[in-house]
């Protein structure tokens, strides 16, 4: 069977939901005739017409605002940010209107905001951001970060069907690098469930997005030395799979928290808090974070290389922790 790339998996997921549910539509910049900057909506204009694949002006705030309005009227909009970085321009509508609507007056806002995020492509400070924490810190939103083609498809479908606003971070670096065979039936990946990508007994590495592969690479390396990593892919950050995290930590008693996002106020902090609160007695060593440093994402290859967490960082920290 054919292999499906991560980016194609997103496209398939949207396509299938649009076929099944007339309420689903897409709006954003260059999503129509161009098929989206990353071709996620390629071919959809022809299939679904210009009122379901809507090219908008360059107005991120109005794209999200309009999605909210349509959602309140029973539609299921998917709003595309051309790059996740530009989600900053829609921050107010997302965090104040969409996130708080159900709480205020009982009216849910079932929108999906797709945001191509992440570094590794020499995009510089404005085409490489990982803005997930701004939304993870906003009650009322859901936040997902798929790392595999299967999850990319299953989570976009789950997000579209979800009754609440979901921010869907798709990692640009994975778009065409990750492929797998996908089942042909209609499947979803439930929001809020983690996946263990490698079972291990010595140290839990809890991560998400492109860093899953960094962790796996490190695990392979460490295997040779007899250090057995467990690699957990959170998949969803809000809500996140508390139980899976705690189970893993209780099993391995040592934990590395890994993300591509910057450190201060990153998701690792949240995890560290939860683990310390609820599994303190199980810990046999400090909770260690591996993250990007607290800088914008630099552009030049040697800088970006330095910026992004690497398998060698995981290897180094795992060794230290193993020896603790």
């Amino acid at each position, binding site marked *: 069977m054919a292999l499906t790339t991560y980016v194609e998996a997103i496209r398939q997921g949207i396509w299938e939901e649009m076929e099944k549910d007339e309420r689903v539509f897409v709006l954003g910049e260059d999503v129509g005739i161009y098929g989206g900057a990353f071709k996620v909506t390629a071919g959809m204009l022809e299939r679904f017409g210009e009122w379901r694949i*809507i090219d908008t002006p360059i107005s991120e705030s109005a794209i999200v*605002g309009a999605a909210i309005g349509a959602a309140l009227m029973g539609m299921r909009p998917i709003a595309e940010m051309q790059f996740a970085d530009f989600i900053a321009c829609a921050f*107010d509508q997302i965090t*104040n209107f969409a996130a708080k609507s*159900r*709480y*205020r*007056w009982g009216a849910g806002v079932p929108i999906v905001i797709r945001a191509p995020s992440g570094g590794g492509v020499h995009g510089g400070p404005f085409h490489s951001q990982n803005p997930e924490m701004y939304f993870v810190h906003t009650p009322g939103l859901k936040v997902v970060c798929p790392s595999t083609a299967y999850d990319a498809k299953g989570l976009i479908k789950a997000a579209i069907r979800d009754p609440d606003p979901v921010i869907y971070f798709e990692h640009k670096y994975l778009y065409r690098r990750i492929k797998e065979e996908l089942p042909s039936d209609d499947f979803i990946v439930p929001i809020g469930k983690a996946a263990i990508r490698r079972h291990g007994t010595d140290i839990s590495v809890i991560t998400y997005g492109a860093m899953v592969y960094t962790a796996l690479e490190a695990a392979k390396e460490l295997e040779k030395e007899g250090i057995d990593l467990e690699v957990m892919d959170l998949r969803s950050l809000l809500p996140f799979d508390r139980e899976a995290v705690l189970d893993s930590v209780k099993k391995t008693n040592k934990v590395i928290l890994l993300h591509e996002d910057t450190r201060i106020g990153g998701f690792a902090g949240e995890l560290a808090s939860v683990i310390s609160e609820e599994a303190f007695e199980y810990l046999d060593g400090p909770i260690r974070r591996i993250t990007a440093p607290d800088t914008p994402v630099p552009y030049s290859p040697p800088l970006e290389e330095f910026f992004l967490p690497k398998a060698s960082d995981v290897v180094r920290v795992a060794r230290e922790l193993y020896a603790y």
Partner: protein
Amino acid sequence: MNLKAVNPQALSGGTIQLTTPPPEKTLHSMLYFMKLTRELEFRIERKLYRQGKIVGGVYVGRGQEAIAVGACIDLRHEDVVCPSHRDMGAFLIRGMSLRTIFAQYMARKTGATRGKDGNMHMGDLNLNLVPFISMLADNIPVATGIALSFKMRSQDRVALCFFGDGATSRGDFHEGVNMAAVLKVPVVFICNNNQYAYSTPLERQMAVANVADRAEAYGIPGEIVDGNDVLAVWDAVARAIERTRIGHGPTLIECKTFRMTGHSAHDDAGYVPHELFELWEERDPIKRFERYLSERGMITQGGIEEIDKRINREIDEAIQIAEKDPFPDPEDTLKDVYHEG
């Protein structure tokens, strides 16, 4: 302060002559809702607030009652209204009950937001009433999306979106109106230009004389009406709705009016030249409309008094109930952040 720009004499001057005025029943409804708005807000601002029964701030639309009433009175149920913070008439006409409103202002569980949100942030999907949030102009792109959903489903519905002059300085005004114009969706934008945004007079807000001038930038009609003339508002909105129903896209209607209060209950509006209040008092929308009706023999002094009595009775009853309504349970805090399946 440029007095000329806000001189009400520069407006249409008295009530306009309509080719086909609304039926008498509608005229009576208009009077009722304008007076109901006035008395309701009077009770909130001057009675309950001073008695310490209102929770949070209070913003009223005294002197501006004709706008929401003229705009909303003839809407169909399936049309959608997105009001702002000086449009109490919109809530009333849509069917929000007095008890719900008082309960809302007293932060009770029976209020429109069950105590979750404050004052005019009231909405109800069953009433096709979408509440605004504090961030001024945020409701504009949302209204555009509401109208977009009508167009994409070929529904014969329109959205009405309200905001103030100050809100038009926000980016979301621009993005929302522009997108509506480009997509030609069925929405009518109604600006209450009450000459001030908090303490900021119009000429510190924009370098054009009229909010309607902004319409030029979007390729949509901009119309100026006397916002203190309920029939002028009614007429302009009716025409704009007609236009948009048949696919011609949005209109921006500017209703010239004046905020006959401070920005909120705690603001004495010391920065407003006193003569402006006097000037605009003369053009009080309710008194003018009463005059219009009585000159045409459509209402008597007795009829007016009867309306007042009815309104007072309805309000008294609603307050009585609302005052006994319970506050929300503390644990409600945790509810409804997400869908509870």
